[in-house]
């Protein structure tokens, strides 16, 4: 990554198509060595944002800085992309495809072949190297495309729904490769509807809706902002009425206590600990899942069919 402090810097970018404003004044940045979650419902403007970042389409207004400046032909060799609308040349073999795409990214023929072999072995596709792309299963095709997008070891990797079509074993495999790239300093932008993967892998996220920024920042901070004013407590003894608690309910043997306005969880814990005959065994702030937050902010559930979004 070199000395660039920011891999991608998007500032006040908008994109309009006729009367439609696909992206509206969007700003965010992505840093080296992080996996950045780009989230949003269908048609929110995610793919448009990605395409603008990659210089596939031009923004109507605003500035985009990639790897320390405007996009250039030379910088394209330092960027990896796995688009949502995926495809490779059906009539080429896996190896020929990877060598061709690797060479387009500036690798020499020998390096492209060596890298292709290394990565194909890693994703367990080496035995299929001489098969034509059209003869691959969906999962194999997905892995071949992942290799095509990453074998040149980019500084900035943009991946759109990287886990769609993969079984749990291959999902784990791709996930481990992405984490390794992150640890090696690659800035990774991951657009997905699989909230569980975002929670597992992303340090920071951007949630956009109708082309506008809705949530942006470290995932933990966002989750804290959305943490319910409630705690889950396992305890022995009878608690009865607890000062500062608005409502008490029991779920699976645990108490769920909703706090009154202005009461902090720490105060409640103190009161419970000081109660005679009561032993606190577990005290935990109730966390919203990312999916809960998504639904709350966007106002609707993530439907399974949203896996294949076109922004």
């Amino acid at each position, binding site marked *: 990554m070199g000395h660039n402090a920011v891999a991608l810097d998007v500032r006040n970018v908008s994109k309009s198509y006729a009367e439609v404003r696909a992206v509206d004044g969007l700003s965010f940045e992505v840093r080296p060595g992080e996996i950045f979650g780009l989230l949003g419902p269908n048609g929110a403007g995610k793919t448009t944002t990605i395409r603008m970042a990659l210089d596939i389409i031009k923004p109507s207004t605003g500035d985009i800085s990639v790897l320390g400046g405007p996009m250039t032909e030379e910088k394209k060799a330092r960027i990896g992309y796995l688009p949502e609308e995926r495809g490779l*040349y059906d009539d*080429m073999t896996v190896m020929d495809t990877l060598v061709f795409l690797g*060479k387009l990214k500036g690798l020499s023929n020998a390096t492209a072949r060596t890298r292709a072999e290394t990565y194909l072995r890693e994703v367990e596709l080496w035995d299929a190297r001489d098969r034509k792309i059209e003869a691959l299963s969906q999962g194999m095709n997905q892995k071949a495309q992942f290799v095509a997008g990453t074998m040149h070891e980019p500084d900035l990797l943009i991946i759109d729904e990287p886990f769609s079509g993969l079984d749990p074993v291959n999902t784990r495999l791709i996930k481990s490769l992405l984490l390794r790239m992150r640890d090696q300093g690659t800035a990774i932008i991951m657009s997905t509807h699989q909230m569980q993967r975002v929670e597992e892998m992303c340090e920071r996220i951007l949630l956009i809706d109708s082309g506008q920024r809705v949530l942006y920042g470290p995932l933990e901070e966002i989750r804290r902002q959305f943490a319910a004013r409630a705690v889950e407590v396992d305890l022995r003894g009878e608690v009865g009425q607890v000062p500062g608690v608005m409502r008490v309910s029991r779920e699976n043997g645990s108490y769920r206590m909703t706090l009154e306005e202005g009461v902090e969880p720490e105060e409640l814990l103190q009161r419970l600990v000081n109660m005679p005959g009561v032993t606190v065994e577990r005290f935990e702030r109730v966390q919203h899942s990312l999916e809960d937050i998504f639904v709350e902010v966007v106002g609707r559930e993530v439907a399974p069919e949203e896996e294949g979004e076109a922004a």
Partner: protein
Amino acid sequence: MRKIWLVAAATYRRRVTSTLFLILTFGIPVLMVIAAGVAVLTQIGGGVPQIGYVDQTGELAAVSGVTVEGRTVPVTMFDSQEEARQALQAGDVGGYLVVPEDYLEEGAATYYGESSPNAVADEALIGLMRLAMLPDAPDWILSRLDDPSDVTYVAQETGERVAQGPALVLRILTPGALAMVFVLSVFTSANQMGAAVVREKEQRAMEMVVTSISPRELVSGKVLGMTLLTATQVGVWMLGAAAGVGLALLGTLQVQELSIPWRSVLWAALLGIPGYFLYAVLGAGLGVIAGDKEQARQLAGVLGFLGMGPLYFMSAIIDNLSGPLGVGLTLFPLTAPTIALFRMTLSEVPTWQLAASLGIILVCLAAAVWFVARIFRAAMLLYGQSLKPKEILQALRHA
């Protein structure tokens, strides 16, 4: 430039090994050679024929045989056509010639036979008539009459020397043949180019590829790869045609007599190569605009029509080779190579017209590459959709 070559090489390799390409490329020349072989076999088949003739002029001498290529062909003179017909039916002769009363004025005679006379019989009939008209002429005169003189034509202005016979035919036909090669190449590639771009869009690899190269490089690489493919195909066809023609003219052509009209060849290359690229880039552009292969085929048909278009004007142009239509179509970039070369078959085309035509083609080629690269950027992500005129205008303004 390296990336353009990479795309060109990949495009070429992917297609040159396809079954359809191999069948089309090698099947047609094989058919040409077979057709030529059949023609040759028909000509040389049947051995030495026996022929007869009926003299209705009463002026011809009796001939009992003629020598053709060292072989004696037996000849029978019949008193009447009925007698000759019966001999033919009986199989005594392979055919007979009826020389009518007015032959000496009109020169027309009629041959009746089981089939068309083969090459030996044809020669024998000519020899028969010479001998029948000049029975007392010595052999050297009869032999000289076969080939009275070897005339060499010398152009007053250029000093170019062209010998009579095949060399002259080659001199006249070469520009036309080159024009036909151009038309064939354009017609072949216009279809393939559009379909190749549509296929590229359909395979959806484009979004990944354009993060590595610019649309201009991708379009240029595609056009170059497809051009090499067309060159391979047309080259094989030309070799097949040359083999076929060579086989058909076996033994009748002296290679050292041939003279190549280098000026025509030079201008064919100067106008034909960029002219071809212009068609190829426009073919790619139509593929960009088309939503699917069917649409691409229809649009390519329009381009192919333009490529063939000059042929429809040929009779009007021949009537006035240096007239406004001939000069206009020589300067119009899409018809320039064909019309200029056809005009060269029949007369000299001024160098200024050819140079102006080349300049116009190059300017249009540069504009076409710019235009196609612009709309390509806008259309490459429209899977299965065609580019509408409004979107084309937007692409030209904003891309």
